[in-house]
């Protein structure tokens, strides 16, 4: 039947994701990873995977569990796998972290940690991909935003498999020529397909639909530029083509990465111009905080495209790290935090008040949040990320820890707003719990 029900585990995914974001930022404040440690040090790997898997992947999966049904107008398939997928990813990530910690000499080495972590992660990702894939499959032919998601989860699969190969190679369990070739040459493919393909391409697709929904832009304004889809898909194919090349020739396919980078910049340009058009043609005149706070993320995306040029000419670690940091915390995290500011209150409102709408007076969605207080923290957040990027570029490791502290503080305040929304803390007491409404659990939605 058409329609989109509340996704039972989305809030749990979000809660876990936000905890990992706070953990990751705390690690940066404490001087874990680059630039305090070398770029390829195990400490950096620990930090990168806390953020990439713990925060961003769980955030994206939680959001997709709720919004893929909205994109395709059909209910979710194989929903039962959502909880096992989450648990496997959590266990896998913890094992992976233990393995990296062992490589850093912090804990005794159990070679099986990395392999077990990779196995659990690949299995968890496979389950999540199955839910989303089956839901998309039953809704063919796919709309343009759904195609972005399909390509995004394809990239997730390749990223996870490459990661699995690296883990097996590093753990020394599987002595295999193919794994060592991939480990030596495939790191950039793993990173580009993960951050660019899985997270960004999916976020771009979903954002087309969400922006249009939240700002009531006419469909004509929000028509997805097919060029973004096809050029982006082409660029990702070029990147992925590096995998069989490395297996066959034991060398990276540098030219394809360069061309993909150029295409990526074109995609960013087209996408940002689409976004500008959607904002301009909106029918809803007041721009809510989730949409205005996303502007910083688009700025960071454009800045990342500029940083990519610096990386191309300057092959140093600092340029690459600055690009990754701006992309991950400015673009992906900024967009995520901004959209959660709408998604969490909306889902909470629907869960708590949906069953009593029309029967009793209920608050509006916007009554669950206080936008004014929160907006300044988004400004502080983006300013700290911009300053942090400059610190990395200029190799100021200690100053960077200072900007990360500000970033952590802003994140904590924003997350506290989500918790307040979940607890209905800002709703007038008279409207808080009308007869028949049940108070939402903090991170576990009631099944409907």
């Amino acid at each position, binding site marked *: *039947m*058409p*329609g*989109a029900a509340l996704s039972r585990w989305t809030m749990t995914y979000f809660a876990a994701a936000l905890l990992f974001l706070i953990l990751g930022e705390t690690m940066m404040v404490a001087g874990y990873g680059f630039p305090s440690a070398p770029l390829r040090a195990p400490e950096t790997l620990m930090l990168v995977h806390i953020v990439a898997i713990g925060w961003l992947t769980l955030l994206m999966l939680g959001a997709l569990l709720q919004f893929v*049904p909205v994109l395709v107008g059909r209910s979710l398939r194989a929903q039962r796998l959502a909880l096992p997928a989450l648990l496997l990813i959590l266990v896998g990530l913890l094992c992976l972290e233990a393995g990296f910690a062992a490589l850093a000499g912090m804990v005794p080495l159990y070679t099986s940690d990395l392999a077990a972590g990779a196995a659990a992660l690949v299995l968890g990702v496979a389950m999540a991909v199955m839910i989303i894939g089956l839901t998309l499959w039953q809704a063919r032919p796919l709309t343009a935003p759904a195609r972005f998601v399909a390509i995004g989860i394809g990239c997730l699969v390749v990223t996870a498999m490459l990661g699995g190969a690296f883990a097996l190679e590093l753990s020394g369990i599987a002595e295999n020529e193919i794994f060592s070739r991939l480990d030596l040459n495939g790191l950039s493919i793993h990173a580009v397909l993960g951050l660019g393909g899985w997270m960004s391409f999916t976020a771009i697709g979903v954002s087309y639909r969400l922006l249009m*929904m939240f700002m009531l832009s006419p469909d004509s304004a929000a028509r997805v530029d097919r060029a973004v889809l096809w050029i982006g898909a082409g660029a990702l194919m070029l990147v992925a083509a590096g995998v069989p090349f490395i297996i066959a020739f034991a060398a990276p396919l540098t030219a394809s990465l360069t061309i993909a980078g150029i295409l990526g910049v074109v995609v960013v340009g087209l996408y940002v111009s689409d976004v500008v058009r959607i904002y301009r043609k909106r029918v809803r005149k007041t721009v809510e905080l989730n949409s205005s706070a996303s502007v910083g993320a688009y700025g960071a995306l454009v800045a990342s495209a500029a940083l990519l040029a610096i990386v191309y000419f300057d092959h140093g670690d600092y340029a690459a790290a600055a690009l990754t940091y701006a992309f991950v915390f400015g673009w992906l995290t900024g967009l995520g935090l901004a959209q959660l500011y709408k998604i969490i209150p909306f889902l909470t409102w629907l869960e708590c008040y949906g*069953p009593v*709408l*029309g029967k009793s007076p209920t608050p509006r*969605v916007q009554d669950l949040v206080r936008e004014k207080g929160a907006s300044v923290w988004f400004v502080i957040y983006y300013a700290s990320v911009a300053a942090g990027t400059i610190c990395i570029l200029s190799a100021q490791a200690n100053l960077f820890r200072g900007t990360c502290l500000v970033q952590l503080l802003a994140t904590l305040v924003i997350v506290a707003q989500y918790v307040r929304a979940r607890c209905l803390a800002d709703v007038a007491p008279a409207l808080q719990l009308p007869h028949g409404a049940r108070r939402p659990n903090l991170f576990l939605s009631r099944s409907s």
Partner: protein
Amino acid sequence: MNQQSHELDVRPILRSGGEPFQAIMKAVADLKPGQGLRLLATFRPEPLFRVMEGRGFTSVAREIDGGDWEVLFTPRVAAEPPVDVSTNAEMPQLWPDPDTSLDLTDLDPPEPMVRILAATEQMEPGRVLFALLSREPLFLFPELTRRHHQWVGSFDDTGEAYRILIRIGTRTENNNG
């Protein structure tokens, strides 16, 4: 909705040795939603069938006078937009005329959902509500079903407004159905 097919005769282009592909693609791009294309050519344009298939058209070709060919390309999607129906809806064609109508096209979501649910609470079982919205109310559908109401909905021909008919249900009716 049965629109007249657009007619395009590329025989003059072909006879003068030209390449008609551009002209055909432009004509296809200019078609209205649901409109077909009637193409006249000097041969059976086999490669074009694949191209048009990819764009969602079925093709029927027949030879006409003088060895020329006429091809009718019909959009595969039905001209009428698909209709969403709740699983509990029984014979919507027999429902009584709506006695309440709401135009909610100017409201920001989720206000239309709030208004519709408020209206359904005021109505007797068996009565019908009609509402016009600017979007497909995806989160409303499960809530209507939970309250044992039946519904049918579809976009209008322009695709810019969503129409929904809701028949107020009772718990007993649902249990029997």
